[in-house]
């Protein structure tokens, strides 16, 4: 008995001694906060957070790799306590939210009948699932079983629906889903997503250069959730009021309804939702990620610059916009006339973007007032160049510098400054017989402006035919209604002036269409001896424009910047990084003169690259990037189940009224028309769509 007691005491003492010595000898310093944080975690070692046990999760929180809300069992209380230990605001960590991207469900057809286990994981192993769609939801609800928070339920349409208020973003469903349809993302991650070849994308969404989730915002308009629609658009496009007015909507060319019927008026719906926000008098809040303290300079306050600045700010970086003009907006302020985009609207929109905490400095020109060196000195770590295309191409014809001759952008800009500030030096005397050379949107903007300024006769001279005009068809029609004359197949060769050096006549050659050229348009060929004279007293050349790259010569540190032969900055189309690593670009200064929406999409793509550059990750292209290509299986020849319904007509001011003033000529849809138009949307996905209800 005594021996037993002695042995146990001895053994116990030895073990205790060895362990206490070991704990001293093998002591590893651990952040004391780890133990504190661990105390607030649930202690269930459930692994739901993705870390092996609560201790590992606590280490990750203290290392800053996991948010205070890491513990999915502990819930908000645990998050608040952990945040208190870490000294951060629990709200500032970005919440993860699960989202189902598939809208297929029952409407997706089966390619075979499946009698096996009721599990998506098993079904996915059989030819990728029973549904025809290669990427769509299998509908057996593995995600529902995986969710311990009851946040996913099977919706009536046969695909799971996430209940946002219950979702904690644990990611269990993402792991359970064999088709990668359920994705758990923070807001920043959603802002940085780009179209991928294997994603659930409707044809309109594949076409939009800004990659807006079009079916989603139309569905939100349909259900009356206008605020939701605005947020959906803002995830991709900060300039929704402007685009709603001026976008030539390439998306509508690929609208699936358009194959059998008129396409859905997507852009008018965008404007409808955007106008509701503006007219409501309050701004819907735009969330931003926590500040990172990294500074980025954005040169050029046009659509590309504003878009890039907006997305960088939402990702938490500090942004300063530099612009040479007195106000931000770039070409959409100074190139697009008042009657298409009222300045009041544009100002409201830009103010909303700047309200996120973006600084702006205007009246400063890159190369003259500041350069790469001064930016580096101020602590800017990356530079975005989006200086646009402000330099008009010249006609290279005799006499084009006579008095009364102008170039397109120059004319529109001077006119806009004069209109906005009333400065007399920018006032341009308007002729009686005016001619605009060119067939693009700039030319149309010039003629419609001239009509409003009271010119008696306004004509367009274009060397091809109406079919080849690059301007938006609606704009050409509107110009015609307003009384603009068109001279097609006419190539100007010479401008003739009088003794005072004033323009009096334009000589042009008549043309005929020949073989198609590289752009696929038939090349105009001059008809010999067809020289014709035209009496004019004002001439505007609007035959295209390119970037003004004079700053490259003024800044020695930009010597090595590679510039293409079209005078644009050379960069990889995926990452938009120039050959100088800290310089990124997008918009017209990268693409050459192009669409507003193209610049907005480019701004976001550049923002992604800059974000990766600042967070010191490798800047890789988006994997399986679609980059405006189309997914072949999503393009149809015929669409079944369509009952033609007329497209909503755009309300506009009567011609007699609108040519007298610069009041906005296109009006917004009425609510009932907008809802009817939203009903026309087929809610397409990759290959699924909702046929019209009244067609069997």
């Amino acid at each position: 008995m005594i021996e037993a007691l002695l042995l146990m005491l001895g053994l116990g003492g030895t073990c205790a001694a060895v362990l206490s010595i070991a704990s001293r000898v093998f002591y590893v310093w651990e952040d004391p906060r780890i133990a504190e944080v661990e105390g607030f975690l649930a202690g269930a070692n459930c692994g739901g957070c993705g870390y092996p046990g609560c201790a590992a999760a606590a280490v990750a929180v203290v290392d800053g790799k996991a948010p205070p809300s890491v513990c999915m069992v502990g819930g908000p209380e645990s998050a608040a306590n952990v945040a208190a230990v870490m000294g951060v605001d629990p709200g500032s960590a970005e919440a993860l939210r699960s989202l189902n991207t598939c809208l297929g469900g029952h409407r997706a057809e089966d390619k075979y009948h499946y009698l096996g286990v009721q599990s998506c994981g098993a079904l996915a192993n059989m030819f990728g699932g029973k549904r025809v769609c290669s990427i769509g939801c299998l509908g057996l609800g593995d995600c529902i079983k995986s969710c311990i928070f009851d946040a996913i339920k099977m919706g009536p349409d046969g695909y799971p629906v996430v209940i946002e208020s219950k979702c904690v973003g644990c990611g269990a469903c993402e792991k359970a889903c064999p088709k990668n349809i359920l994705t758990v993302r923070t807001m920043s991650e959603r802002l940085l997503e780009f179209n991928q070849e294997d994603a659930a994308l409707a044809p309109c969404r594949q076409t939009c250069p800004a990659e807006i989730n079009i079916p989603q915002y139309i569905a939100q308009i349909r259900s009356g959730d206008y605020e939701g629609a605005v947020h959906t658009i803002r995830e991709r496009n900060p300039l929704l009021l402007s685009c709603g007015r001026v976008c030539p909507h390439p998306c509508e060319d690929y609208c699936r309804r358009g194959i059998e019927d008129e396409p859905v008026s997507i852009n008018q719906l965008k404007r409808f939702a955007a106008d509701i926000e503006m007219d409501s008098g309050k701004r819907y809040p735009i969330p931003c990620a926590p500040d990172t303290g990294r500074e980025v300079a954005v040169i050029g306050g046009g659509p590309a610059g504003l878009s890039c600045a907006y997305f960088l700010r939402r990702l938490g970086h500090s942004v300063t916009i530099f612009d040479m003009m007195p106000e931000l907006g770039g070409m959409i302020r100074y190139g697009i006339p008042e009657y298409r985009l009222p300045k009041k609207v544009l100002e409201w929109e830009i103010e909303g973007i700047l309200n996120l905490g973006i600084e702006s400095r205007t009246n400063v020109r890159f190369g003259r007032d500041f350069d790469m060196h001064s930016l580096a000195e101020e602590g800017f770590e990356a530079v975005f160049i989006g200086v646009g295309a402000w330099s008009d191409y010249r006609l290279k014809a005799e006499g084009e510098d006579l008095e009364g001759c102008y170039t397109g952008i120059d004319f529109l800009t001077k006119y806009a400054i004069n209109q906005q500030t009333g400065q007399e030096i920018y006032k341009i005397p308007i002729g009686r017989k005016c001619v605009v050379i060119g067939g693009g949107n700039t030319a149309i903007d010039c003629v419609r402006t001239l009509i409003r300024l009271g010119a008696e006769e306004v004509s367009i001279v274009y060397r091809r035919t109406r079919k080849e005009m690059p301007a938006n068809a609606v704009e050409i029609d509107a110009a015609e209604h307003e009384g603009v004359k068109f001279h097609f197949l006419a190539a100007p060769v010479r401008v003739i002036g009088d003794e005072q050096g004033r323009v009096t006549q334009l000589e042009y050659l008549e043309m005929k269409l020949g073989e198609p050229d590289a752009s696929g348009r038939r090349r105009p060929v001059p008809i010999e001896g067809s020289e014709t004279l035209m009496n004019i007293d004002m001439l505007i050349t609007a035959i295209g424009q390119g970037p003004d790259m004079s700053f490259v010569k003024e800044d020695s540190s930009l010597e090595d910047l590679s510039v293409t032969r079209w005078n644009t900055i050379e960069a990889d189309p995926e990452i938009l990084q120039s050959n100088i690593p800290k310089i990124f670009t997008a918009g017209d200064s990268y693409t050459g003169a192009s669409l507003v929406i193209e610049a907005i999409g480019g701004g976001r793509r550049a923002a992604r690259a800059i974000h990766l550059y600042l967070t010191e990750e490798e800047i890789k292209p988006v994997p399986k990037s679609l980059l405006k290509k189309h997914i072949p299986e999503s393009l149809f020849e015929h669409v079944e189940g369509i009952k033609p319904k007329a497209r909503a007509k755009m309300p506009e001011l009567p011609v007699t009224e609108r040519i007298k003033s610069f009041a906005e000529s296109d009006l917004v849809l009425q609510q009932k028309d907008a809802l009817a138009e939203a009903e026309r949307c087929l809610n397409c996905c990759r290959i699924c769509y909702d046929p019209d209800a009244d067609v069997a």
Partner: protein
Amino acid sequence: MGDYFVLAISSIFINNILLAQYLGNCPFLGTSKKMETAVGMGMAVIFVLVMAGIITWITNTFFLVKFDLEYLRTVVFILVIASLVQFVEMFLKKSIPALYAGLGIFLPLITTNCAVMGVCLILVNEEYNFMQALVASFCYAVGFALALILFAGVRERILLARVPTPLQDTSIALVTAGILSLTFFAFKGMV
């Protein structure tokens, strides 16, 4: 040498700790859902079991037998194994962080693993000498890892099979374990 070979075969296959002795049931079901975890657990058991086998053999021979206190065996072994695992955990954390990161979460689980305790008691009951105890504890642990990994492979396949609802998850796992165990009983005639 031949004896050791027989010992090894019998510890790994014939008297497999999981499938023939049916000890260590909880980690067998708990950590066999994924191959990755099964491998981690198997390696951790090999590591700990060899050390526990040696230290309990020493404790038994030099203290319990010497002082005629064999009736305290169970309580002494629990104390020794628990302290050992704690010690090993501290040691690994400081000296071999890479190994600690790999085995980290499995080590505390082994503190209360009956397979470890069972093997230690078997070593004593069979009256092995030191070398035999060393080889046997290593081979029992290898048998544990082998059975666990085999079972994890089977369970990963079960996920793809059509299982009647009442038998899903743990039930089918136990049925499978039974069949697997039967196949191991086929080794009985070998030695």
